[in-house]
């Protein structure tokens, strides 16, 4: 009985999706004069940002990014709240597997390179693919590697929390600065420079670097919390 209901539901769902997306008219009736060309055009001519996706994420739809950063912040906080234990003791770290000497030595070697790669990715977010989210997660994976390889590697929760808070405050403050200078929230109020220069695009790289710090701190904290949950 239950199986039948599930299959019926799946069939209805699949039918709706297929009727929409696999219909030959779907492509033909599309309105191609949407916002796309405006974004591509303005990114080059006004924002002087090479990477259009970055321009959209940080400037055109920067409000979404603010919300998204908040979602990550909430997720990290919620994790701490849900896994909270009565007596405030931190359990042993979960050991995924005992790290051999090759792994630990190799991790030490790779770790700085990963951090450097992450920093490169978010500093060049407005020029090349990548940006704050990507760079931040790369840095977090670097810390994850160290946490797995060395049992006594630890990170201060307070330091992470301070970095996270300052990056978040910086984001909102830059938004409010635009509010005071140019008239609207998150407005690009700094000089935009020359396309494809490292220092170009006004506030876009600044905000994306702040996002990078925030994402890195949040994800590292999140992994740290969940790693210290021993059954």
């Amino acid at each position, binding site marked *: 009985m239950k199986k039948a209901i599930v299959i019926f539901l799946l069939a209805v769902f699949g039918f*709706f*999706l297929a*009727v*929409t997306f696999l*219909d030959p*008219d*779907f492509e033909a*009736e*599309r*309105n191609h*004069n*949407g*916002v*796309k060309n*405006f*974004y591509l055009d*303005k990114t080059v001519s*006004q924002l002087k940002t090479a990477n259009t996706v970055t321009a959209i994420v940080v*400037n*055109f*739809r*920067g*409000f*979404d990014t*603010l*919300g*998204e950063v*908040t*979602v990550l*912040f*909430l*997720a990290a*906080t*919620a994790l*701490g*709240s*849900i896994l*909270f234990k*009565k007596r*405030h003791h931190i359990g042993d770290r979960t050991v995924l597997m005992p790290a051999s000497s090759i792994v630990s030595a190799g991790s030490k070697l790779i770790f700085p390179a990963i951090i450097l790669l992450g920093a490169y990715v978010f500093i060049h977010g407005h020029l090349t693919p990548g940006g704050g989210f990507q760079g931040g997660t790369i840095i977090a994976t670097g810390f994850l590697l160290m946490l797995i390889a060395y049992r006594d590697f630890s990170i201060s929760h307070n330091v992470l*929390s*301070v970095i*996270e*808070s*300052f990056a*978040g*405050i910086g984001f*909102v*403050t830059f*938004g*409010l600065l*635009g*509010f005071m200078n*140019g*008239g*609207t*929230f*998150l*407005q*690009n109020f700094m000089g935009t420079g020359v396309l494809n220069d490292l220092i170009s695009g006004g506030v876009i790289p600044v905000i994306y670097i702040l996002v990078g710090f925030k994402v890195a701190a949040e994800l590292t904290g999140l992994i740290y919390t969940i790693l210290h949950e021993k059954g």
Partner: protein
Amino acid sequence: MVGSPVLLIAIPLLAAFLIPLFGMVWKESVRIVPGLVLAYLTYLSASLYIEVINTDTIVEIIAGWRPPWGINLVFSPLTGFLTTIMTFMGFIVWLYSYRFKRNVEFEAAKKYFIFLMLLVAGSVGIVITGDIFNQFVFIEIVGISAYALTAFYTGRDSAEAAFKYLIMGSLSASALLIAIIIIYSQLGTLNMAEIAANIDNMNPYYRIIAMIFFIIGIGVEAEIFPLNGWAPDAYTEAPGPVGGAFSGIVAKAGIYAMVRMMFTLFDIAGPMKILIVIGLITLIVAETSALRQEKLKRMLAYSSIGQMGLVLVAFGMGTKAGVFAALFLMLNHAITKPMLFLSGSFLTFNTTEKYIKQITGMAKKMPVVSIIFVLGALAITGFPPFSGFWSKMAFLSAAADENLLFIMATILIISIFEVVYYFRVINRLFFFEYDDKISVEPHKPGFNGMIALFVLAFIVLMIGFYPSSVTGFIDLAADDLLNTHQYIDKVLQLGQTIIQ
């Protein structure tokens, strides 16, 4: 110019990032700062609302790009009305829970207040945003805060309730995303006004499918029938004041999103019938379930779902009178249901199961709280001269104008149901002797909690005796919702402030 709508979002987010820093310096500040923020939001929202009523709708641009391209916030008589209610209720809930976990656990209290503040901020965001993807982001903010608040107590079955809520919430978020994909692919825009202006160019099949996915996506927050399985559990397991926040704030935001979508986005013939059908099913199922509940909070949760169904039916009539009645019902419910949750939470303070039989004879021990509870029960069932009476009258006259006799009869029968299950509680509360074996230990209510309850009770009485004090505002809000062209024009003709 007193401020700008964007501050309604920016200030709580800024405060949320600041609170961990403040907490390191002065522990009490994690309680005070959210309260100050919510009080400021209430002030800002109320003053903006007055300005909007006297002058014109404010359309706020973000990042300097005018509406079809950038995200915009719309602060109109309708959204201002809802925002003011929500921020005010957020402040009341904060006031009630000010002493929450005091002197016990600092970390837990810090997180509780951050979640509460962002719950309010996210709900306000759902209401004032003018962009569908931005609305999705705010729905996720509300969702994650709500999951975390539901799972807040570790001792109870709260993780189950939160898990249920999370699965439903994220499935519906996926549906919402699919609807956004269909709309974006066909119209090439995400702006609500632009969508509303171009919706006629869209193939009707795609329009209907997108609308179905939208209903699934928003239905979880709006608590409509097949998607509200999470609600009774979440309301029961969450901390007492959070139940009030869910019914007073989150459900209102969900209903708004639903109604905005139906009235403005998908302006096709027939959607109103869908609203009536969904609303009636929700109403009947919820109210009949409420009759059978043994737990106080569960009963209140079902009652809350039922009221949401009633609101949807009223919106579904589609006429001016219907929308007026619906907004009036929303206002009354936003004030009365948190009052019931908060006073009920005081009555059952020292028990984790919250059975109705455990409050037997409590009226003699806690007379003031009991009287406030009764006031709320009378107001929500629609006894004159309390606030609920006027909204139910407005509803019935709106239905009578449209000759919807079946709906009128159903509402009257449902009202009898409501009277039955509320009087079951009142009967136990007042006319039974206090019994040590079944009743709980009375709890001495805190000073701040009592102030919150008194403020709410005052508002209920005020609306009850002077309904004309609010009907003017509701009238303007109803006009605003029905005038789709005005909404589109206001948003799209705002080409002056674009940066050159």
